[in-house]
């Protein structure tokens, strides 16, 4: 039992519609230093929780730990294990990482007060999974760009105009080419997004990841998540395959992963009518660079 006298707090991983069997939860390693995973009930909602040391999960300690990439990674993996443990028992609402309550009672009453919203999200996510799709400019573009900027100053093969004017005209051609390539790639990314949206219940565009994060030399043009009905999963993946095989889309590289627990679509407290959700997602899609 979590309380201040035992020095533990209640870490909440996920909410689920069905109660995961204790045996399945006990086999899952949660956060290090914590107790075994267990469930609590708040009305019709089950909570997957773990007792974790208060010293490691206080506000100061958490901020400090999550600022260190290695700690952050360990914490995220533990969080995902806890969420995944709940997944086989029907729809799951993953909580944001590091959702901590002082006691079981606090966690239960916090969830109970929003039971209706939670149940609505369950209904929305039931029988649906998330697919992540990223579109990068194709690698040859980066290579060509780098070679272009390198050779400009030294003067190209004999055809180029020598001197300062030659340099300016080469720089002008280089800039125009880069612009064109960029625009084409962006248009292609938009096509990919619009095509996939046709097979998805909902879609959301995340901020493109930096090249530092992706480890690629090419800019990320689309970082989207799609909520796909299990019944349409085959259609969705077939559409992805068609896009990858499409010769007109050579400018980009499409990577996808899934099915995932729908992290991107399980936000509580943003319950808006279905029509408004679609409109908001559409706006986010077109607004994203």
């Amino acid at each position, binding site marked *: 039992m979590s309380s201040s006298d035992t020095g533990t707090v209640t870490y909440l991983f996920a909410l689920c519609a069905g109660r995961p069997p204790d045996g399945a939860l006990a086999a899952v390693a949660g956060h290090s230093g914590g107790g075994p995973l267990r469930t609590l009930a708040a009305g019709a909602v089950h909570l997957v929780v773990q007792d974790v040391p208060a010293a490691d999960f206080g506000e100061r300690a958490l901020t*400090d730990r999550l*600022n*260190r*990439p290695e700690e952050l990674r360990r914490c995220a993996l533990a969080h995902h294990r806890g969420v995944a443990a709940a997944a086989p028992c029907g729809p799951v609402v993953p909580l944001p990482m590091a959702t901590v309550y002082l006691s079981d009672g606090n966690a239960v009453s916090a969830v109970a007060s929003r039971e209706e919203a939670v149940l609505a999200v369950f209904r929305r996510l039931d029988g649906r999974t998330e697919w992540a799709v990223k579109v990068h400019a194709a690698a040859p573009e980066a290579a060509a760009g*780098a070679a272009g*900027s*390198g050779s*400009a*100053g*030294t003067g190209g093969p004999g055809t180029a105009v020598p*001197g*300062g*004017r*030659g*340099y*300016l*005209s080469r*720089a*002008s051609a280089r*800039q125009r080419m880069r612009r064109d390539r960029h625009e084409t790639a962006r248009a292609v990314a938009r096509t990919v997004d619009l095509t996939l949206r046709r097979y998805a219940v909902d879609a959301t565009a995340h*901020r493109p990841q*930096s*090249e*530092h994060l992706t480890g690629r*030399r090419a800019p990320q043009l689309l970082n989207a998540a799609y909520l796909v009905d299990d019944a349409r999963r085959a259609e969705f993946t077939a559409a992805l395959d068609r896009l990858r095989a499409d010769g007109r889309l050579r400018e980009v590289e499409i990577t996808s992963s899934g099915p995932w627990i729908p992290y991107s679509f399980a936000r509580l407290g943003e319950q808006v009518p279905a029509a408004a959700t679609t409109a908001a997602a559409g706006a986010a899609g077109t607004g994203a*660079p």
Partner: protein
Amino acid sequence: MNTTAPAPRDGTLDLDPEKVADGLAHLVLTVVELLRQLMEKQAVRRFEEGTLSPEQEDRLGTALMLLEQRMDDLCAQHGLTRDDLNLDLGPLGSLL
């Protein structure tokens, strides 16, 4: 906790004295490269508009060409490549 001090976040300034000089050169060159690219863009814009006389075009182009060569030399001196000269501005994308 087995570490004595929190490790610096990835991407934050590392104030190790031996690395500071390198880091400073890196930063200065990045800023110079930003200015160089801005100047080049502006020059190309004027060039494309056709508002420069041939002599102006030649002088401007030569200056930019020399500046570019000088940047290559400076990068080589500090063991950097042109691709290193960039800053991740987070939500704003990269600087260059």
